């Protein structure tokens, strides 16, 4: 795909202040996304995945400081006024939140929450909005959609709520979908259904998707490209096959290896030593250095930046693993 990118994120930094100290939640995140492309964002809990998505949509600036640039079809979003942003949110860029249980307003019917988006972004009439809402619920596989419009979120199961949220997000046919762990709360069997649905829609509506997850399997199965985040930074990104099959950053490699696959049962697993750092007290150098076996003295003092190491492939490491990692494992 050599399409012109629709979304370009450059050096995105988001800082929260908590109790007087700065919390660097996201640092220098850059990536670009083309039409119909699915970009994965993986990383451990707290590595800044959700904040990245919220910063793109201009939600994070309400409670944190956002720097860098987010260009949407050539328009700069970070400096855009709230009023202008509102025209883009929901209509062009839609977002699915991580928590299906808390992201729907418990006091409003599902129908209201669906149609209010349509009202804000389309000039459909009352009836037409309702029809569209039913259509969307049908689309995401909620049976008897018409009768469920009048129901409240608590009457839906977690999986169905997630689907409602997807229906809301997709109602106005956005060109970009920011999906924040749309399946974590779900069972594997339902997870498969939902990912299929998103992929199908991305394909049909040639919609770009940024998919946040921490499940490497999900990434492997759904994404075209992937960025791996650690402590607020992208440590490696590129084509999903390359990244997963020949990880160049020790952290990516650690992640891949700690999954119990192709190891004899009941034997010791590979594990990344140590624990993820706290954002309050990041080490001076590479954030992964304390847990990295390949770390040298440079890693303790300097912070590696994201470098092209192959076409469309970047990693942030002073000592990247050899390209033929596959054989070594």
């Amino acid at each position, binding site marked *: 795909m050599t399409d012109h990118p629709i979304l370009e994120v450059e050096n995105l930094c988001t800082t929260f202040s908590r109790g007087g100290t700065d919390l660097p939640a996201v640092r220098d995140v850059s990536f670009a996304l083309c039409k119909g492309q699915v970009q994965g964002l993986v990383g451990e809990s707290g590595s800044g995945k959700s904040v990245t998505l*919220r910063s793109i949509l201009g939600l994070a600036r309400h409670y944190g400081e956002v720097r860098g640039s987010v260009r949407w079809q050539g328009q700069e979003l970070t400096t855009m006024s709230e009023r202008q942003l*509102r025209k*883009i949110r929901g209509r062009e860029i839609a*977002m699915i939140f991580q928590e299906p249980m808390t*992201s729907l*307003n418990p*006091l409003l019917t599902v129908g209201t929450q669906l149609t209010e988006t349509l009202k*804000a972004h389309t000039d459909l009439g009352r009836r037409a909005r309702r029809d569209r809402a039913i259509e969307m619920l049908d689309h995401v596989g909620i049976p008897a959609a018409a009768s469920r419009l009048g129901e*409240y979120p608590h009457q839906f199961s977690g999986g169905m709520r997630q689907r409602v949220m997807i229906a809301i997000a997709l109602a106005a046919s956005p060109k970009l979908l920011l999906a924040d762990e749309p399946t974590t709360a779900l069972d594997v069997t339902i997870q498969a259904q939902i990912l299929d649905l998103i992929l199908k829609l991305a394909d049909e509506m040639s919609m770009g998707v940024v998919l946040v997850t921490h499940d490497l399997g999900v990434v492997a199965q759904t994404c075209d490209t992937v960025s791996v985040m650690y402590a607020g930074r992208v440590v490696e990104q590129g084509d999903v096959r390359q990244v997963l099959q020949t990880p160049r950053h020790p952290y990516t490699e650690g992640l891949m290896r700690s999954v119990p696959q192709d190891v004899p049962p009941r034997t010791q697993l590979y594990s990344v030593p140590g624990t993820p750092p706290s954002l309050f007290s990041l080490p001076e150098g590479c954030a992964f250095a304390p847990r990295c076996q390949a770390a040298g003295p440079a890693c303790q003092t300097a912070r590696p930046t994201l470098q092209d190491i192959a076409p469309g492939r970047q990693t942030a490491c002073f000592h990247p693993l050899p390209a033929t990692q596959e054989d070594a494992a």
Partner: protein
Amino acid sequence: MAGLQYVLKRLALMVPTFVLVMIIIFLLVRLLPGDPAIAIAGDKASDADLAAIREKLGLNDPLLVQFWLFFTNTLQGDLGRSIMMRTSVSSVILERLPTTGFLALFAVSLSLLIAGPLAFVAALNRGKWPDTVIRTVFQVGLSMPVFYIGLILLTFLAAQLRWFPVGGSGDGFFGQLYYLFLPSMTVALYTSAIIMRNLRASIIEVLDAEYVQFARAKGLPNRLILGRHVLRNALISTITLLGLSIGNLMSGTLVTETVFAVPGLGRLMLEAIFARDYPLIQGLTLTFAILVSIVFLLTDLFQSLLDPRMRLT
């Protein structure tokens, strides 16, 4: 249907509560030192007179008999005769109820009118100066004794500026509105401070909630976000609190009605206690308990109206 069920359930729960209320108040009243007979006949009455009065009032019967009489009569809607008013307790209470009811409703409305918008302003400016100013002012309101606030309002707004009447309850809706403004305001200053605190906190909480973020992400207009998503949700806990503080509000009327010379139930209660008017005290307490229970029930119903999650219970 579910609503009816809920009401029925609540009403059923109220039965033991009321029996308990009646026992407590009955015992409390009998424990009061001082003799209602003296209260009736006055200090100058002779001992024989007093004995006769006591006999007539049934005060010489065993407590259990007295309670049973009180209990069964109350169930039949007969609250007895007021000793000091010399008329039936229910008629005295019914006569005064509208005034206190008006005062309470007025105070609640004022509290909401004052606290609502200010809570919004404070919450939206969290940590900035409007927030600080609003919170401090209300904190002061919260720390002032009701009778003192009342007196200050009276002295300056009524007696000196003559914007409002000094006391009394007024006739007709607008008359009452005019006469009861200051007393209601006095009660409202306190209640609104509590509501403001709570509402501000819940607005802040709701503003941070995921569904509000999601509403933002949907690109909804701000008005819709604040009105439909934030306010409704924030109101839920505030309404519970409002219901709970109705007891407090009633306490407020006790003193306020005395200060402002409003002939309401609160002042009557004080008078009844000081006159050892057993039937009246009992009747009034029951009335208060019923009023408060009704308010609890109403807030519950209102809440379940707002909050669909409550509707199934």
